[in-house]
């Protein structure tokens, strides 16, 4: 008898440690209570940044911006679950995860601004530049993890992608290559239930993303993506196992895109507000806040202080962003190849001359 659809949610139960009411329903594992306060403060800062970026687009300071609101726990859990020498291969909505791995937040603004520095990840950050072609990075993640294995580095990688990205051929090829070559990689799907206007259930007939793992003889996991404690512990375990050669793994972090797809999008056209409200209840920040309040690790003063610190940090980010705006446009020619070709050298000269003309 063939396997019947319908049992997958049981086969891949949702892993949870902190429930919607902020009650601990599992162990804290690798996190300690004080660490959770820091994570809470980071989340608050990231949320404020995200809102601010939205407004900057509205003011015309930056171009299209894709908010990560609602996905902070998934992204920070993924980032902090990794070890110091592990790598992150992000998608375009992962500024929280990138930040946690050492990429300054202004890169999110560079990206939206179309600033040449958008992908100029700091040397010390083990993070790939974000790119927008849906799912292409899943293969880069496999290749990177494979290079770690070939070079006998005791490190793993984690590649993020969306629920929509799971439909792309590249994702399939990545999972197949990854499992055939046994690379130290975590496929981390941020299932936020929407690919622009297309809901999960019209993206795939399967109940879960996690069950895709079965196609590749890979282990798959479904985790509450709004539960930082569950995500960070799961990623931590899997990264360790990946480093031991047991990878790859597929993780489906079940979360929700609380905002619009991007600043160019209007979700009221295609989704019901009661769905949004239901997910507002599951907001990852609120959940952590409740837990911390309940444990006496946070109080009103602490919340206010977190907000205050967040605003300062966001201001500092904006300041760094503004200072980076003085950029020489000729840089467009300098990184096409390692060396300027004769054609590009000549074109660069023409471009510079013209840029000067336009200035005047």
């Amino acid at each position, binding site marked *: 008898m063939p396997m019947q659809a319908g049992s997958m949610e049981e086969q891949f139960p949702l892993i949870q440690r902190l429930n919607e009411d902020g009650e601990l329903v599992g162990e804290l594992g690798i996190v300690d209570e004080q660490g959770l306060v820091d994570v809470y403060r980071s989340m608050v800062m990231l949320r404020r940044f995200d809102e601010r970026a939205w407004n900057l687009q509205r003011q015309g300071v930056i171009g299209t911006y894709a908010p990560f609101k609602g996905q902070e726990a998934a992204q920070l859990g993924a980032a902090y679950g990794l070890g110091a020498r592990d790598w992150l291969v992000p998608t375009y909505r992962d500024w929280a995860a990138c930040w946690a791995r050492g990429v300054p937040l202004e890169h999110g603004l560079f990206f939206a601004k179309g*600033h040449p520095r958008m992908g100029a990840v700091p040397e010390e950050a083990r993070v790939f530049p974000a790119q927008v072609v849906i799912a292409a990075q899943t293969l880069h993640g496999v290749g990177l993890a494979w290079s770690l294995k070939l070079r006998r580095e005791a490190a793993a990688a984690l590649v993020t992608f969306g629920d929509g990205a799971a439909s*792309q051929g590249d994702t399939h090829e990545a999972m197949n290559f990854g499992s055939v070559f046994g690379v130290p990689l975590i496929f981390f799907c941020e299932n936020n239930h929407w690919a*622009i206007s297309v809901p999960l259930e*019209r993206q795939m007939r399967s109940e879960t993303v996690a069950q895709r793992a079965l196609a590749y003889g890979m282990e798959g996991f479904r985790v509450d993506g709004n539960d930082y404690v569950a995500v960070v512990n799961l990623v931590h375990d899997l990264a360790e196992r990946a480093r031991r050669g047991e990878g790859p793994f597929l993780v489906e972090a079940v979360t929700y895109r609380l905002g619009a797809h991007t600043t160019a999008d209007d979700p009221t056209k295609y989704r019901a507000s009661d769905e949004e409200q239901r997910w507002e209840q599951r907001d990852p920040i609120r959940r952590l806040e409740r837990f911390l309040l309940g444990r006496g690790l946070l109080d009103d003063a602490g919340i206010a202080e977190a907000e205050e610190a967040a605003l300062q940090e966001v201001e500092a980010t904006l300041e760094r962003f503004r200072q980076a705006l003085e*950029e020489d*446009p000729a840089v467009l020619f300098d990184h096409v190849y390692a060396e300027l070709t004769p054609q*590009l050298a000549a074109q660069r000269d023409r471009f510079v001359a013209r840029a000067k003309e336009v200035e005047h």
Partner: protein
Amino acid sequence: MAKLTMAQALNQALGQALEADERVIVLGEDVGRDGGVFRITDGLIDRFGAERVIDTPLAESGIVGTSVGLAMGGMRPVAEIQFFGFIYETMDQIASQAARVRFRSMGRFSAPLVIRTPYGGGVKAPEIHSDSLEALFVHTPGIKVVTPSNPYDAKGLLLAAIDDPDPVLFLEPMRLYRAFRDEVPEEPYRVPLGVANVVRAGRDITLIGWGASMPVVLQAADELVARHDVVPEVVDLRTLSPLDESTIIQSVQRTQRAVVVHEAVRSAGLGAEVAALIQERALLYLEAPVGRVSGYDTPYPMTMFEDLWLPDATQVVSAALAALRF
């Protein structure tokens, strides 16, 4: 007659095609409830239902590949690729499949599908969203390549493309979707494929453009007339494959000079083909090299600097004057 934007004209054309022919369906990412990220399919799902206006999973090869099967099965799919830069994901299904079905089967099957996609720069879109890749498809036999530069042509060319018995890649300059309005007749009409448009008759030089570049070319033409006493002939190619060679050649034989303008990267762009053709068939008429005003040989730039990177009217004017003073 109503004054419509190109976006409205395209929307009207799609609605009329869906209405006129049961075989027509529209499919792609977000084309349904959302009406497409540029709203070109707005309202169609309400009028024609989710069976004919279809939100697909996020997979371009899937969209075009199933469209090939749909077309071979007797349907007339109009597929949307959300941005031209993502066409790479489905190059095989376009170039080796859709474009070869008729050839492969000696005419037993054909794949009359239309692939619509927004292209071109100037709207500050993210990486890979603004590329002009038309040359790749002009180099691909078996598929036609069409691009309108105004609302009137947009409607007429799209309806002609949907009628066409062969696959058509239909490139929509996204910068022009809402840039201006034209008088657009309400009733369905066709602008024939394969026929260039002499937008302005002239005598001193031929300016050749298409799609997103046309406003730049026209602005340059205005300047040439107003400030330099040069009267250019302006040709809008409209169909890029097959090229309307005779219109090009006849014009250049009269004007003896030409400048071709495109946003795409310079090397091996369609401008090269136009220049090669002209020197091949009209060398003895040429008083100056055919000029090319184009993008540079870099990836489409980060948008902070796209305005500097894109061809503008000043460059077209300079190129024209250079040709005249050669």
